[in-house]
């Protein structure tokens, strides 16, 4: 029996759990879930969901890795290159995940099953699209019952989307705190008054908020009569509430028109493009992470040859634009997430291990950090040695990094009103501190500027 390690996030559902063995993630199905698992297969639901690439496909492995008496089946799902969390998704990623959950539910209902839970953590992004990963979330449909996961769906998807749509709040920050979703009462307090006059929102938010509050006193179990027709109508209503929700793009964000407005613009970009391509041309394998990806110009270059590019930036609107663009072009090689490198996602949840920190998931074969370092050192006051250590922790092999010197127009903007940043900040200091962890393989000044592009290899 090989060693195995149960995944720290996989403990809530007694139907089974995810574990790691032989450097792969497996899922154990317990005997208690036998009937539902067999129905998932026999009803053809597994096939129709995996054919449509809605559910992550798996192979059954005939081996009880864990030695458990509860064992029924071992599944080997398609392995995901990167695990992300809802608080790292942009608005449209969360919206697409919500619509995928509803679509999954509708297909399930038609084939005699329902989703017994609808947390956003059941969705991952894979090959540019959201995919449902929890094979054990399906159970037999009892037509007399409403949807057991309705409230969870609202809290994890509908409410955060409504809040961002109506209040333009970066909802990622809230979701990192409300891991199980934002409660109806909280949402009701956050939404503007005018939303009370929209029927769907009134029903799903304000009515739910008051009913949940009052249901405290009702102890009697009422007889419940629901029907498939009612359930499908409820799902349609959720879908039609979510579909028109949009992120407001009129608000100018940090990176809006970053390249368009800068006087460096076209010549600089063309020169940097050429050098960048030279630097990365012979690195084609493994996981690549573009940190501070901005509009994703260089992530897209990376994605021409690498199948596994993860583009992150702290600006959620920027990530949203990149996601929408990649989706419209059916780009399968880029995944986009909202990550602030000076405040990356922490380890949260039960025992600080249910949801891993960004650093624990981010390790990549190559990291690219273009026009980022001056933001870390000059605006966020992170000392150069700490930036070097952080980058060294992120990459296993290569780092392609652009040094933006102090006399650069953008650096000057950042220090226009401040004098207390860490000095010295120059190429010598950069090479000295990064030299602790890396060897310089290539370096080149970007013509027309004093910026330097480096390709570093880990010692």
């Amino acid at each position: 029996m090989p060693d195995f390690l149960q995944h720290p996030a996989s403990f809530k559902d007694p139907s089974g759990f995810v574990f790691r063995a032989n450097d792969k993630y497996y899922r154990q199905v317990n005997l208690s879930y036998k009937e539902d698992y067999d129905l998932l297969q026999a009803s053809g639901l597994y096939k129709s969901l995996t054919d449509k690439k809605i559910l992550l496909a798996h192979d059954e492995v005939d081996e009880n890795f864990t030695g458990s008496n509860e064992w029924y089946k071992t599944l080997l799902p398609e392995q995901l290159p990167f695990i992300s969390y809802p608080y790292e998704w942009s608005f449209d990623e969360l919206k697409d995940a919500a619509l995928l959950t509803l679509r999954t539910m509708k297909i399930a209902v038609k084939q005699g099953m329902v989703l017994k839970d609808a947390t956003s953590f059941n969705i991952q992004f894979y090959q540019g699209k959201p995919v449902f990963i929890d094979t054990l979330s399906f159970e037999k449909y009892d037509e007399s019952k409403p949807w057991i996961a309705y409230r969870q769906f609202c809290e994890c998807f509908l409410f955060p989307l409504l809040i961002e749509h109506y209040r333009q709040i970066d909802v990622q920050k809230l979701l990192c705190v409300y891991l199980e979703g934002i409660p109806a009462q909280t949402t009701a307090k956050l939404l503007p008054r005018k939303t009370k006059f929209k029927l769907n929102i009134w029903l799903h938010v304000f009515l739910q908020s008051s009913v949940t509050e009052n249901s405290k006193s009702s102890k009697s179990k009422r007889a419940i009569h629901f029907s498939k027709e009612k359930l499908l109508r409820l799902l349609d209503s959720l879908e039609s509430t979510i579909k028109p929700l949009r992120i407001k793009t009129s608000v100018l964000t940090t990176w809006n028109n970053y390249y368009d407005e800068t006087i460096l613009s076209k010549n600089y970009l063309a020169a940097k493009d050429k050098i960048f391509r030279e630097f990365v041309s012979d690195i084609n394998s493994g996981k690549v992470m573009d940190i501070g990806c901005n509009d994703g110009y260089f992530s897209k270059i990376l994605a021409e040859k690498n199948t596994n590019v993860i583009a992150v930036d702290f600006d959620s609107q920027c990530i949203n634009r990149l996601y929408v663009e990649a989706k419209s072009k059916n780009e399968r090689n880029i995944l986009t997430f909202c990550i602030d490198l000076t405040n990356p996602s922490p380890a949260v949840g039960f025992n600080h291990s249910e949801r891993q920190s960004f650093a624990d998931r981010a390790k990549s074969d190559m990291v690219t950090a273009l026009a980022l370092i001056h933001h870390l050192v000059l605006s966020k006051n992170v000392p150069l040695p700490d930036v070097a250590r952080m980058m060294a922790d992120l990459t296993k092999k290569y780092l392609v990094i652009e040094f933006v010197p102090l006399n650069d127009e953008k650096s000057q903007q950042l220090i226009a009103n401040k004098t207390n940043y860490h000095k010295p900040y120059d190429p010598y200091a950069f090479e000295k501190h990064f030299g602790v962890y890396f060897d310089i393989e290539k370096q080149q000044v970007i013509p027309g500027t004093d910026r330097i592009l480096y390709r570093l290899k880990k010692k």
Partner: protein
Amino acid sequence: MRTFLLYIDPGSGSYLVQMIIAGVLAGLFYFKNLWWKVKAFFSKTKKSDSQDNDNLDA
């Protein structure tokens, strides 16, 4: 604020809401259907009116 929810199963709170929502949506559906029927009825009579007129003209 939410502590009471810890002692009831995840569905309980929401079952009642779903019953009400389903009721409202069913009502809405009913009236919409009715409205379509009324509309269809009148557009039909209109059509037949105009047909009658056509016949008269002829």
